[in-house]
């Protein structure tokens, strides 16, 4: 059984006991514990179930590479699935539950899959569940899906907040072990701006556990001294609990900082995502120990040798009273020594190598431990925890020579550099035959914006395996001047590449050798993939799901590659690796979203009159990022009723519209007229000062992109109104053409959209209202239709445009935004006697539709050209060129059979459904019903008391009076007659009074 030792534990504070719960059981730990350490201290060796076979799973590692110990952490709005116990700091009151088991961790019904494992090899689902066809949808897949997934689903929202921050540096050091510290110090002493980030809650990495001596000091002391030295340097920033998760193009790196994961609810942001631009990233991420593939290597109690050492030294955890060590290298002997130092029993070290004579093995032998050379584990005995190991010859087929009772197994298959960050952005790897590892190829680094290297590895991440090599490599990586910190050279014999145990294992044993613990991928599965032709490493990965678990293959990939290479009879480098993708460890989506939630999810653009609308029954409509009033509902009114009231009131009396969102672009210069003539389809250069003209704008591909009224302000200045959505887009469009095509033309553009509030005063009483406000002559004589004037209204500076988008007498008044609300309220107050009511966008739409005016986005959808809309009058025939002219000459756009704008009137007076199509006889070659038109705008017209619509119809304007069929979703057909699209005041008398 695992337990807490009575002495030791360099990271724990025994004066601070903590209480936490796991699966409902109250347990205790110490400050400084990881949850994994705390669980082991409470003999909780079984911590989860595997994905496919629901095999019992125990803690196997001690860091971010852990594939098994995933728990559901927290409760309610702070519940988080799949949290790794090995990187979770234990805190008082922590609550965790095990995952992927039912009803309990101990008695899991899903474990029946384990009994059927032989029938469920890699890719079994591709070969089964094919017949009968409906069964996949209704029987098989629902079953498979119900058994999918690991953690429980969070319910509802997230109680925490997140944030992001930018940082810039010359040198980003990812990893705060002795390599990272050395590199940071070297860079900092050279005057570089250094950011040093460490994922754990403490500095120093493995070295203090492994017992190195650096510059004559114990590693822990050297670490403390170096950290203090760095902290004192103004050009160094250091952060714990911060994982560099990805390296991206041009030296962009992401790091996730866990600020309050261990202090939930303390008011701080839970996590912070750092977005770092680094000149150079030093990848000092260390190395990851490889498991060994032997039968039963997945039982709880089988752990990585380095992890066992960590638990003993850092947290005073005994993984068991008797720990057998299985290895193919010398490093694992350190674990034996650590266990012995803690007073625990090591019954034997099983070493696959034929002869073991290095200093470390000798030291272990000297402590009286049996070292079995050329031996392997034939099988681990036990059910939900290790009970013993059966020993066989590595060279054989697994005949058991001996059995040894034990309650833990520490295994080591050697170490793999953590090359992920190096590889994310294109750094290449090379297979190191002597060390049996893929390590970074310094000659092929990831490159940046100037083609320069943007990353370098340091220490174990480079493949260095001894403290002396690590320090020298890290010092050099950061361009260190002078001597590197030194450590006594270790005398370690090389590892032997042993990929399965025993070498001649048969199918039955291979089906019990786990490669990927979480996804239940075994040696036999990889061999099956190879046999079936899934030979590419990517095919094998995808066919078997090897390396696709939440650890992304940190433990399994190299072993899997080796097994695949063996099956294909090719060297490992010929097989290659799968692609390393960010993030290095999973990154919380909340942190990725950052501060953008709630009120600051997105900018919400407000006009100066926004608050008034809000206070007066507004129903909002999002228009881009703006909010515009859709209508103003009175108590008891539906939206539809409100719109009808607003329409009638505007037609009969007086309406007020907040039109502030319309774009207002000033175009000025000697070439401004010429420029606008290119931009608009009609002539703007001939517009007299003081006048207004409606204009259309097309893309150079011919399509209508915007419309609006242009006013000529002075001889060389025009004011162009755009649609709400067009302000920024058309401004950019203008700058594009001015800067990139006609850069020698003398034109300046300024976007004044937000400088002004704009209020449309609309209806028969409009003039009387403005006259009451006073200050300007707004009579027909002084200010005729399609002109503008400047002055003061109600004492506020105003520019008044006599334009109409409703067919009524109408003034659009622009006032400075700082006085927009004041002007609006003045209108409301003064307008009471005229029956003034504010109206919203829906009323605006109805008013314009009654008049047959087009709306960008309704009549146009990116496929419509002005000629389709009967707007030929707004296309100059005189101009040699304008944007879109040549495009509109192409055969399809000049086709007389294009659908063209007409009005549509239902025979029964009903409102045509939105987006309905008019059918023609017959079907096309694909069996689709032929169509001959469609509805673009459709409304109930309160003015006419019936439905009105506009639509595009083939040869429409030539077919007045014809009746079209519009099938609707319910199977009904609505009939509508083609009519002129101007339904109201065809002569335009009402607007020109």
């Amino acid at each position: 059984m695992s337990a807490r030792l009575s002495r030791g534990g360099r990271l724990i504070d025994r004066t601070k006991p903590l209480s936490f719960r796991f699966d409902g059981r109250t347990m205790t730990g110490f400050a400084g514990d990881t949850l994994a350490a705390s669980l082991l201290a409470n003999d909780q060796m079984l911590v989860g179930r595997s994905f496919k076979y629901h095999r019992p799973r125990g803690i196997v590692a001690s860091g971010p590479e852990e594939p098994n110990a995933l728990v559901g952490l927290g409760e309610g709005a702070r519940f988080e699935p799949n949290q790794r116990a090995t990187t979770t700091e234990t805190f008082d009151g922590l609550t965790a539950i095990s995952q992927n088991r039912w009803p309990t961790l101990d008695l899991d019904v899903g474990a029946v899959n384990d009994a059927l494992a032989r029938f469920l090899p890699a890719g079994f689902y591709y070969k089964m569940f094919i017949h009968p066809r409906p069964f996949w949808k209704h029987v098989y897949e629902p079953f498979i899906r119900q058994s999918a997934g690991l953690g429980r689903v969070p319910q509802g929202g997230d109680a925490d907040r997140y944030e992001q921050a930018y940082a810039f540096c010359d040198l980003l050091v990812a990893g705060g072990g002795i390599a990272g510290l050395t590199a940071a110090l070297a860079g900092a002493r050279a005057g570089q701006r250094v950011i040093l980030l460490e994922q754990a809650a403490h500095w120093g990495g493995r070295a203090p556990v492994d017992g190195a001596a650096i510059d004559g000091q114990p590693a822990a002391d050297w670490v403390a001294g170096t950290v203090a030295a760095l902290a004192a340097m103004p050009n160094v920033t250091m952060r714990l609990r911060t994982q560099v998760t990805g390296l991206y193009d041009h030296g962009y790196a992401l790091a996730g900082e866990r600020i309050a994961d261990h202090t939930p609810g303390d008011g701080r942001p839970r996590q912070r995502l750092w977005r770092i631009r680094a000149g150079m990233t030093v990848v000092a991420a260390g190395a990851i120990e490889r498991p060994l593939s032997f039968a039963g290597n997945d039982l709880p109690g089988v752990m990585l040798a380095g992890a066992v050492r960590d638990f003993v030294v850092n947290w005073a955890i005994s993984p068991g009273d008797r720990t057998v060590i299985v290895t193919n290298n010398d490093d694992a002997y350190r674990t034996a020594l650590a266990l012995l130092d803690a007073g625990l029993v090591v019954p034997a070290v099983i070493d696959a190598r034929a002869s073991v004579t290095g200093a470390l093995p000798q030291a272990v032998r000297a402590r009286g431990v049996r070292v079995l050379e050329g031996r392997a584990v034939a099988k681990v005995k036990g059910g939900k925890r290790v009970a013993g190991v059966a020993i066989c010859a590595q060279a054989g087929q697994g005949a058991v020579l001996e059995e040894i009772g034990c309650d833990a197994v520490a295994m080591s298959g050697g170490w793999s550099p953590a090359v992920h960050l190096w590889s994310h952005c294109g750094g290449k790897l090379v297979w190191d035959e002597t060390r049996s590892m893929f390590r970074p190829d310094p000659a092929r680094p990831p490159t940046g914006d100037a083609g320069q290297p943007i990353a370098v590895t340091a220490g174990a991440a480079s493949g260095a395996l001894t403290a002396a090599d690590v320090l020298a490599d890290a010092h050099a990586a950061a361009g260190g001047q002078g001597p590197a910190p030194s450590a006594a050279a270790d005398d370690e014999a090389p590892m032997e590449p042993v990929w399965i145990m025993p070498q001649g294992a048969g199918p039955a044993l291979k089906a019990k050798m786990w490669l990927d613990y979480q996804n239940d991928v075994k040696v036999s599965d990889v061999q099956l993939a190879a046999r079936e032709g899934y030979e590419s490493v990517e095919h094998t990965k995808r066919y078997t799901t090897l390396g696709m678990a939440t650890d992304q293959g940190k433990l399994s990939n190299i072993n899997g590659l080796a097994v695949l290479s063996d099956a294909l009879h090719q060297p490992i480098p010929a097989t290659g690796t799968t692609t390393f993708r960010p993030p290095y460890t999973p990154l919380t989506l909340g942190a990725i979203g950052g501060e953008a939630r709630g009120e600051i999810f997105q900018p919400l653009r407000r006009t100066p009159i926004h608050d008034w609308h809000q206070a007066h029954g507004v129903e909002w409509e999002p228009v881009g990022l703006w909010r515009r009033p859709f209508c103003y509902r009175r108590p008891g009114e539906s939206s539809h009723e409100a719109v009808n009231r607003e329409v009638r009131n505007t037609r009969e009396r007086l309406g007020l519209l907040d039109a502030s969102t319309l774009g207002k672009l000033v175009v000025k210069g000697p070439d401004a007229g010429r420029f606008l003539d290119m931009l608009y389809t009609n002539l703007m250069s001939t517009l007299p000062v003081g006048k207004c003209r409606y204009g259309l704008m097309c893309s150079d591909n011919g399509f209508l992109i915007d419309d609006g009224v242009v006013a000529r302000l002075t001889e060389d200045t025009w004011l162009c109104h755009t649609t709400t959505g067009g302000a920024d887009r058309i401004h950019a469009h203008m700058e594009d053409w001015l800067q990139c095509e006609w850069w020698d033309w003398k034109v300046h553009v300024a976007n004044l959209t937000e400088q002004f509030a704009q209020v449309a005063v609309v209806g028969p009483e409009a003039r009387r209202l403005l006259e009451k406000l006073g200050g300007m002559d707004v009579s027909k004589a002084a200010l005729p239709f399609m002109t503008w004037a400047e002055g003061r209204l109600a004492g506020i500076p105003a520019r008044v445009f006599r334009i109409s988008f409703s067919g009524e007498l109408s003034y659009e008044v622009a006032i400075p935004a700082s006085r927009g609300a004041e002007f609006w309220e003045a209108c409301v107050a003064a307008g009471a006697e005229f029956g003034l009511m504010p109206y919203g966008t829906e009323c605006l739409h109805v008013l314009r539709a009654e008049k047959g005016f087009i709306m960008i986005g309704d009549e146009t959808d990116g496929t419509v050209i002005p000629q389709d809309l009967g707007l030929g009058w707004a296309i100059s025939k005189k101009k040699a060129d304008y944007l879109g002219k040549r495009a509109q000459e192409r055969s399809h756009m000049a086709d007389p059979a294009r659908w063209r704008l007409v009005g549509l009137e239902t025979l029964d007076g009903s409102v045509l459904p939105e987006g309905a199509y008019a059918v023609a006889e017959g079907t096309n070659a694909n069996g689709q019903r032929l169509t001959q038109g469609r509805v673009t705008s459709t409304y109930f017209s309160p003015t006419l008391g019936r439905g009105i619509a506009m639509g595009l119809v083939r040869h429409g304007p030539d077919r007045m009076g014809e009746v079209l069929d519009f099938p609707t979703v319910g199977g009904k057909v609505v009939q509508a007659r083609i009519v002129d699209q101007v339904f109201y005041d065809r002569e335009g008398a009402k607007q020109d009074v």
Partner: protein
Amino acid sequence: MKRYSVFAVAREALRWHTGWERAWRSPQPKSRYDVVVIGAGGHGLATAYYLGKNFGITNVAVIEKGWLGGGNTGRNTTIIRSNYLQDPSAAIYDKALQLYEGLSQDLNYNVMFSPRGLLMLAQTHHEVRGYKRTVHANLLQGVATEWIEPAKVKELVPIINIDGPRYPVLGALYQARGGTARHDAVAWGYARACSAMGMDIIQQCEVTGIRTANGAVQGIDTARGAIDCGKLAIVVAGHSSVLAGMAGFRLPIESMALQALVSEPIKPCMDVVVMANTVHGYMSQSDKGEMVIGGGTDGFNNYTQRGSWQHVEETVRALIETFPMISRLKMLRQWGGIVDMTGDRSPILSATPVGNIFVNCGWGTGGFKAIPGSGWAMAELVAKGTPGPLAAEFGLNRFREGRFIDESVAAGVAH
């Protein structure tokens, strides 16, 4: 080809699965084929498959630079739907959907087509109008879709936040037949079936040149030698411009990186595919339990299969707004795929300026769902030399004529 079935699996289990044969052969290239298809992704393999199945043309090689299914087929978010607005699009995507419905049986390979239903959320009035228009168009195209109200959306997607303060859900375009499939399996299933017909799938074989004479194709040069062909089909999403360049013409295409990511697996919580175009994100849950999330395309030309980070942020924050419960999930993996973006964002299935060279490209962000239909139509184009009805509107000539197939009304977001 040994047939797959539950009985076959059981039989093999008794001998530890040592008796399975290769899913596809790994042959040496021959010196000549009637048709060479460049690109062993889903579209290329499907083209070859239907050349054999529908036209009896089996002297076919499928040439692949890397490993089959390793391009966009293996890195997309596996959404399948046919609720397109424009007639030509609806026709080919619905053909694809129909073929997907029977693909596992047709190929004797379970591609795990999962018609779990697909929702496109309407979160502005403009979208409401657009989707209602699509429903009407689909009605006449014979594509069953419906407009559903918010309450029904909530019923189908319990984890959704219908009343988001910023973009409340106003309804959705729902296609019950839409869903997902296992992307790799689609490529593998086609490859196995092509191989069984005697076609050669040649992996790790980069095309280095295209030989023409008298305005028509003669053959190709490859890393594994010259191969002659009667006809050549270029089906290489992402690299179409490069191959076209070898044949001496330009395409209305730009290659860009499209971003996707998955979360760690959680227990089933969302049984449909949801696309939220206003906030630029879409999400489904895989059979493994991962939330599969797709987002934006970088605007710049890119051949790296890596992408920029900001689109991931935009997508994720938008989806948190729509699905607040995902905030405490974690991103497990992100990746990019290189997609062909055409001038009108619709695909190209076309003859080319060079005789007997045909291109199938430009599927942009939506190619996976089209694979069977695309292969079907492409096979017809290659076999007959002229397009059938499914491909007729997708010719290159449309760019000269100004006759575009614009789906932006219905699909404002990558997919």
